[in-house]
């Protein structure tokens, strides 16, 4: 749609604290949104970040409502706690678009990722890579979050198809390298040899460190898209041909959410929930993705308006969305 949005104001509130995934999401948003402001596509943009605290994010949203933003993009720190406030925003005629961690309030537009497929894909990869057998460790995310439940369900349902793959342990790594390292270290001594680690992203690097520190054989660890995960993968691949697979949701989703908000303001019809493909990195694309990912961030495409419109249209038409745009190598 091409309605005039040059006076419109769009804000982002991210309820999570600053891990590299979130940082990449903000960086992507900032690059795209400030460009849009400069180009006169929208009037004003703003980012507010949080502290993993839903209560704080509620306040932030209320402030954005008070400030009269036309659209608010949300990465919700709680799937439910913000519902009341989101409703309030919708009632005030504000466009609310949620991405990554969703909230359940129906009035908001949701940019979603098929997290169950996340678990399915990595488990299939693992089965292939290890000949459908072996001992596995599952690293889960934040207990009680929907994303964690979905990925774990994908993993465990797929594992049922492979009777010789045994899950011998589970820990919660909170998608955080440091925590994952500690949690994995607690269980390692009592576990038999581990052949593979099924992860949820952000925790691959930390688990690897735990295996190293314990002096154990390094298993096949599924990586997320953080730079450290990709870098260590490349390093081990170059050294002794280590093979693995990286899957993740792309932080650049925040820019899809941005353009979605802009399009709605411009008058486009958008489905209530639409899906963004997962970002899968394989050996052949590792180098280009790593090169495009600065230290301390996570691999992610930046979406243009055109990408977003195509994605929405594909979703509307019910066709499988195209794969993610490949990284533009830095000039």
């Amino acid at each position: 749609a091409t309605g005039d949005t040059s006076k419109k104001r769009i804000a982002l509130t991210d309820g999570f604290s600053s891990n590299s995934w979130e940082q990449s999401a903000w960086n992507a948003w900032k690059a795209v949104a400030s460009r849009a402001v400069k180009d006169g596509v929208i009037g004003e943009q703003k980012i507010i970040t949080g502290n993993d605290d839903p209560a704080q994010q509620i306040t932030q949203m209320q402030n954005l409502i008070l400030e009269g933003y036309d659209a608010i993009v949300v990465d919700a720190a709680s799937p439910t706690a913000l519902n009341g406030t989101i409703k309030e925003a919708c009632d005030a005629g504000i466009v609310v678009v949620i991405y990554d961690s969703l909230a359940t309030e129906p009035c908001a537009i949701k940019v979603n990722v098929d997290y169950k497929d996340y678990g399915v894909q990595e488990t299939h990869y693992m089965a292939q890579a290890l000949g459908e057998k072996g001992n596995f460790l599952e690293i889960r995310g934040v207990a009680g979050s929907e994303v964690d439940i979905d990925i774990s369900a994908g993993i465990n349902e797929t594992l049922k198809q492979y009777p010789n793959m045994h899950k011998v342990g589970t820990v919660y790594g909170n998608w955080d390298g440091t925590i994952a390292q500690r949690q994995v270290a607690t269980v390692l001594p009592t576990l038999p040899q581990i052949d593979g680690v099924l992860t949820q992203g952000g925790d691959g690097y930390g688990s690897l460190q735990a295996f190293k520190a314990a002096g154990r054989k390094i298993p096949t660890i599924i990586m997320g898209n953080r730079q450290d995960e990709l870098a260590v993968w490349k390093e081990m691949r170059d050294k002794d041909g280590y093979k693995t697979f990286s899957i993740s949701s792309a932080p650049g989703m925040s820019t899809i959410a941005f353009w979605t908000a802009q399009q709605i303001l411009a008058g486009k019809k958008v489905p209530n929930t639409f899906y963004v493909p997962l970002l899968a990195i394989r050996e052949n694309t590792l180098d280009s993705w790593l090169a495009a990912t600065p230290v301390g961030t996570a691999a992610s495409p930046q979406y243009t308006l055109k990408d977003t419109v195509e994605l929405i249209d594909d979703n509307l038409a019910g066709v499988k969305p195209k794969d993610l745009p490949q990284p533009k190598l830095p000039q």
Partner: protein
Amino acid sequence: MPLAIRRLVAQPSFYATAGAVLVWLVIVAHSHGVGGGAVISGALNYSVFFALVGVGQMLVMASGAGNIDLSIPANITLAAYLSSGQMQGANAGMAAGFAIGLLSGVIIGLANALLILALRIPPMVATLASGLVIESFCFAYSRVSVAKPAPLLVSFTTQRLAGIPLVVIAAIVASAAVIAVLKRSLFGRHIFACGQNMTAAWLAGVNVRRTRVFAYVACSTFAALAGILFAGFTGGPSLNMGSEFLLSSIAVVVIGGTNVAGGQASVVGTWSASIFLFLLLTMLNVFQVDPGLKNVITGALIIAVLALGKANRPQAQ
């Protein structure tokens, strides 16, 4: 009870140590003896960071009721970033990395002391505020700079000598030095005097201000040291690497038998408590306990160890 046992039980560190041993036995029993040694050396490898941070927090807490450092998490993170940022993944930058990391610790300690002593802001709030400010610096720094620890540092934190990680040996030496300082040195005497009664300490010729500044600086230097090493251990800094240390730094100190009201401290207890908490986590993970129940058990055990220790230890009124 025979006298020897009574003495043992009266040690401030007794219950934390007993708890650690007990939990370890449960783990080993569960795994039918598999990995008993590995559990301990793994526990040491992690506890060392909590113990280092705890020893610093202990010095602050022993220096008087209400003294506490909540800026530790941010401090750890900043030191980790600054030092790894200096090292840039090369051994050549290691000395400079350590220096700059420790320096940031010293400066933070001085800043905390300034807020607390000069502006007379209660320590809990002052360090909460300074922690927030430091967090901003971490945040800003992490975006502009590449941070990677030196390979030598990485191997130092993971290498073992006779099954004991090198970094643990180093930390034990450092802790022994702290014990000596507390038991025998003027500073130790002064810090405990301040801890019991600041007015009395001042009137007895103790330089209260200097002692307290020293306690805060020592604390944040320990935290910075732990941060530098922890960055090596985890292969590189991350923004929330310190958050685990906020509550646990307090927990290990007090479970370890240090008097929260000040005036008395236990380095051994702090170590024991660090190991106890890690083994507790191990046990709950090994038993695959649900997250909810895991939290309940952890909380209840922290209170139980504390209560047992307090109930059976003779105390001054």
